[in-house]
């Protein structure tokens, strides 16, 4: 009984999201300013996060996000609501990231970055410390991020897509199947294998690191 109540509430949530999507799409078609605000507010951050995790290059990700929204704005008239707006936009993002990765491997593999240290290119607002985290916590989190990013980068693109969509953007298996255009079983398999590969990478990177050797000394 409890399961059926949960199912009902989940179904209602899906229906509500669908009606929200249709309302938003209809407003976009009429050119309502709030609709464009809402679309950007809802999707620009997750789309950027997804592109960044799929490409691991901030400037390339920015280009991909712009391409994605350009396509969304141009093709919103032809959106029929066969999938949710989120699935549609994420599918465009994955495809664009895939294209960008292919283009990157063809053309830009040998390019050398001319930008200076990315830390220096950041806005002054980002640089000013806010005191929320201690330097140790910041360093620790950054270390973790670097490790995860490095491990993600080593994953096969199809596994990485599945893991990122599931664990970072928090999409359901069904939504991921819609985004990637594959069956549910394939999605489960890719997520499982991707996670295992990621875990193996993380464990391997920890093992490779030499443990700090602390030698006690008497103060002289």
């Amino acid at each position: 009984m409890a399961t059926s109540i949960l199912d009902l509430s989940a179904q209602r949530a899906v229906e509500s999201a669908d009606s929200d999507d249709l309302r938003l799409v209809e407003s976009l078609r009429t050119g309502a300013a709030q609709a464009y605000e809402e679309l950007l507010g809802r999707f620009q951050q997750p789309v950027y996060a997804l592109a960044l995790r799929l490409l691991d290059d901030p400037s390339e990700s920015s280009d991909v996000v712009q391409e994605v929204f350009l396509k969304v704005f141009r093709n919103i008239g032809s959106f029929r609501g066969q999938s949710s707006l989120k699935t549609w936009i994420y599918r465009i993002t994955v495809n664009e990231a895939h294209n960008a990765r292919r283009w990157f491997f063809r053309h830009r593999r040998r390019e050398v970055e001319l930008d200076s240290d990315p830390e220096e290119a950041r806005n002054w607002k980002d640089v000013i410390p806010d005191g929320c985290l201690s330097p140790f916590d910041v360093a620790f989190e950054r270390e973790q991020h670097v490790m995860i990013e490095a491990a993600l980068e080593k994953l096969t693109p199809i596994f990485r897509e599945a893991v990122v969509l599931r664990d970072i953007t928090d999409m359901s298996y069904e939504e991921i199947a819609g985004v990637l255009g594959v069956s549910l079983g394939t999605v489960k398999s890719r997520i499982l294998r991707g996670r295992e590969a990621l875990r193996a990478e993380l464990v391997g990177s920890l093992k490779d690191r030499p443990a700090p050797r602390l030698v006690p000394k008497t103060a002289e």
Partner: protein
Amino acid sequence: MSCENVQELIFLLLDGKVSAEERENVLAHTGVCRECGTHLESAQMQRVLLRRMAQTPVPDALAAKLRVMASHARERQLARVSVRVRARRLAANINLMFDNLMRPVALPLTGGLLSTLLLFGLMMPSLSFSHQTGDHDFSTVPRGKIVSTPWEEGVDEDAVDFPLFASLDEPKSDYVNIVNLTIDESGRVVDWSIVRGQLTDEIKSIIVLGHFEPATTFGVPTSGTIQVRQSLPPCKYTRCSATVHG
């Protein structure tokens, strides 16, 4: 349940994709098996770390570009549904295009004009002339004139009892012979043409023996035309007026 089976189910357990019975079994196993317990903990940690990565902030530059894109897309969308918006957009585009075309010209043009005015203003005091406005060298005389005739030296309008230089507005019907003389910048007759009547001896005498002053433009001698008019007696020979060509 073996460790291998449990480790396969751990990620599905975190996703809530296992049945209640499987969940109980996995949790029971991880409670007693140290390796599988560590596996569960690392899977949870991995999930948490990955979830944190979703909070990546959008760069300000990208957010600004997206807003601009949205604004343009909205304008395009409105133009599709409204003729008025389409016309306004077209006018704005033309205005922008004109602005863009004029922008490279506007600065040099304004700069050139202002610098010319400034330099001319600075040079103006050094360009002052010593003569007055009424000076002969500085004035324009549109018509040349007859200085003297074979019969009189120093022709003076006041010395004769009829005007020597008649106005061109005066009706020509009062004259029998009218001849146009072309005077060059040296004051010599270079050509003549009969307007009315014939070339009389008196007019020939004027052409050959008369002294002429050429027309001037800003004090510079130039060629001109003097019209010599001869009436019937009692006027002896001339009632003259002049016009200047070029």
